């Protein structure tokens, strides 16, 4: 029986409403009570935040199919470097994770890599074509914890209805990219003044809002759980808030970059700012922050989408959408939410632990005695400069390169094992 003592840190555990200086004990991979004996190993956590291990509910890991962008091993290592003990793996791969074997492959590769825990998310429909339901029951047997067709919206309302009904049998969430495809065809950025000046095809907020309203209506109809990924519009936040008040099972997440950047960033035609949904205006940004503050939005995700340099350094309308974001999530959230006083640490960590754990149905995100010993130690005062050339991820497509930021994870413990420490993987 090996024991690990994390000594005298500021323990913040939103699942239990704890924020106090205390020790955390780990015994055989689980959180334990103080046994009064000497620990085999002690980590001095003075000045550090001791949090339940961070969870990113949805990251895109490239494998199988686009290993030039990321692999399960490189992505899981990048997640550790970002402070994450668990991630949900998106299924929009080649081939897509639409069957049991594909889900088991993700689990196997993650186990071989031995970095953070990786939970596969299965597709909603076969081949992500939006026409027939995938074998959701067998995907669950293969380890899938939730379902999504990734960045492909499920345009057919009848298919979405069935998906919510069917996944509801296992009480699993359907994660949806709420966007009416025909309103964003060829789109590059938020439709507004800047898209007009730049001559770039716009993606109007209505494309998102129409789909958000439809999905809420279908969740209300079916009693299923719909989770709206990366919402970006003020009206979306308002609609979700009202639906939640009526008891509809709808939830939502946001990304850090939508909280910090606006469509004006595209002025230089730099494809590192090209994301889907697009960066919008400060009006929307303010509404997203309000949604986080009042709990309408319960989860923050990196929306990690690594892309190899040869794909991104090119004409903006031909570059792919996305940011390699898992290694910068924490400091960007601190800059966008904590520094201006929108959220305190406990509120932020709630959206990175309890929120995503609940979404994916994981018994994690807590430091309660007996729980899996997934712990992240954060130095909230660490000042550093983001250097994308030093990313653990295979890809360095980030708009935050060179940014001076604050807060960094300094140790990551997965099931009792120290997997990452002081800026280097172990």
């Amino acid at each position: 029986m090996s024991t690990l003592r994390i000594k005298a840190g500021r323990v913040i555990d939103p699942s239990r409403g704890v924020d106090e200086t205390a020790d955390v004990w780990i015994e055989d991979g689980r959180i334990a009570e103080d046994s009064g004996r000497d620990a085999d190993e002690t980590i001095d956590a003075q000045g550090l935040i001791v949090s339940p291990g961070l969870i990113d509910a949805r990251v895109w890991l490239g494998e199988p199919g686009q290993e030039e962008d990321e692999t399960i091993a490189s992505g899981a290592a990048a997640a550790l470097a970002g402070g994450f003990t668990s991630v949900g793996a998106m299924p929009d791969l080649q081939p897509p994770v639409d069957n049991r074997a594909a889900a088991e492959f993700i689990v196997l590769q993650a186990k071989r890599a031995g970095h953070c825990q990786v939970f596969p998310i299965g597709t909603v429909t076969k081949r992500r074509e939006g026409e027939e339901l995938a074998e959701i029951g067998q995907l669950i047997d293969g380890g899938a914890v939730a379902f999504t067709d990734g960045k492909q919206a499920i345009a057919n309302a009848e298919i979405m209805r069935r998906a919510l009904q069917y996944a509801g049998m296992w009480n699993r969430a359907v994660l949806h990219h709420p966007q009416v495809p025909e309103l964003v065809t060829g789109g590059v950025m938020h439709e507004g003044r800047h898209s007009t000046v730049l001559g770039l095809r716009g993606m109007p907020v209505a494309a998102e809002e129409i789909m958000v309203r439809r999905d809420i209506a279908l969740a209300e109809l079916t009693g299923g759980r719909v989770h709206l990924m990366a919402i970006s519009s003020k009206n979306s936040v308002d609609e979700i808030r009202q639906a939640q008040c009526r008891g509809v099972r709808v939830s939502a997440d946001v990304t850090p970059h939508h909280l910090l950047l606006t469509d004006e960033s595209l002025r230089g035609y730099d494809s590192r700012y090209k994301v889907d949904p697009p960066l919008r205006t400060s009006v929307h940004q303010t509404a997203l922050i309000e949604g986080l503050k009042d709990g309408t939005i319960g989860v923050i995700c990196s929306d990690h989408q690594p892309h190899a340099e040869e794909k991104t350094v090119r004409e903006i309308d031909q570059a792919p959408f996305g940011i390699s974001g898992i290694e910068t999530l924490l400091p960007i959230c601190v800059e966008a939410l904590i520094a201006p006083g929108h959220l305190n640490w406990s509120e932020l960590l709630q959206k990175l632990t309890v929120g995503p754990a609940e979404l994916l149905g994981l018994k994690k995100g807590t430091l309660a005695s007996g729980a899996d010993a997934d712990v992240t130690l954060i130095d909230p005062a660490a000042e550093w400069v983001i250097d994308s050339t030093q990313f653990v991820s295979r890809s360095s497509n980030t708009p935050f390169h060179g940014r001076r930021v604050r807060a960094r994870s300094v140790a990551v413990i997965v099931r009792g094992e120290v997997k990452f420490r002081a800026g280097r993987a172990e």
Partner: protein
Amino acid sequence: MTSGTASGESGPAAWTRAHLLGLEELSAGEITCILDQAAEFKRLNEAGEGKLATLSGVAVGNLFFEPSTRTKTSFSLAAKRLSADTVDFTASGSSLSKGESFIDTALTIQAMGVSMMVVRHSSPGAPQLLARHLSASVLNAGDGTHEHPTQGLLDIFTIREQRGTIEGLTVALVGDILHSRVARSNIWGLQKLGARVIVCGPATLIPPQIRELGVEVSHFLDEIVDEVDCLNLLRVQFERQRGAFFPSISEYAHLYGMNRERLRRAKQDVLILAPGPINRGVEITPDVADGGHSVILNQVTNGLVIRMACLHLLHLVRTGGGESHR
């Protein structure tokens, strides 16, 4: 009018830019500097001066990643009249079809000693991207639906030549504003020089936020035809449109076509411009295109001297200035 720099009377400013990427970033003085230089070249051309030696020994690359006849020919001729060596590069039959990236293609051509790149590309911002990666001067010859600065300049030059000034004129841009790079360059340039700009076209082809650029919006040519000094009839860009933005060509011609009847209701001295190529019978009837109000062919002639002026001024910056055009 939102353009804070609007002043048709402002004198020319010294040209100091390494690239010509769009008119949005230029001041009224910088635009006037180009127009005045073009006027000087036009005077020399008409005086029968032969080739000028300005760009002797300089290699100019024409990189056309999108089909073009008139702009490419005009740039090529402009460079030759300044004694430059020209290299023409088109996307078809090039290494682009072998998978080489656009940036690598340009770097390769630059490595052959080409110091000025004229770039036409279907992607907005492509010249900006090249300007970041190259040491050569980049001249935007049209980037997607963003800007086409030399077309905007030659339109403005043509109007100024006819009217003496831009300040105080009302200019209507008619047609497909949504997909038009010519419209964007005209909007910036004309407003900076003090014109009032109206964009006119079907609501489906006018971006909702266009008013934020300082222009007025009309959806019916009949409602503005009697108050404008100049009409710039933009081509319906069938190749850039996805899906139908208006019900039929005949309905478009019915609402927006410039014809004899509308010309009768226009001001006596109205100028008719069209960036071309024109669709006769769609945005303009043949009698108007070939009639006395039309300056369509003057535009083409002026395009040459505008492009000579742009190449000349960019070259002066490269060589540290001071050198005369002779």
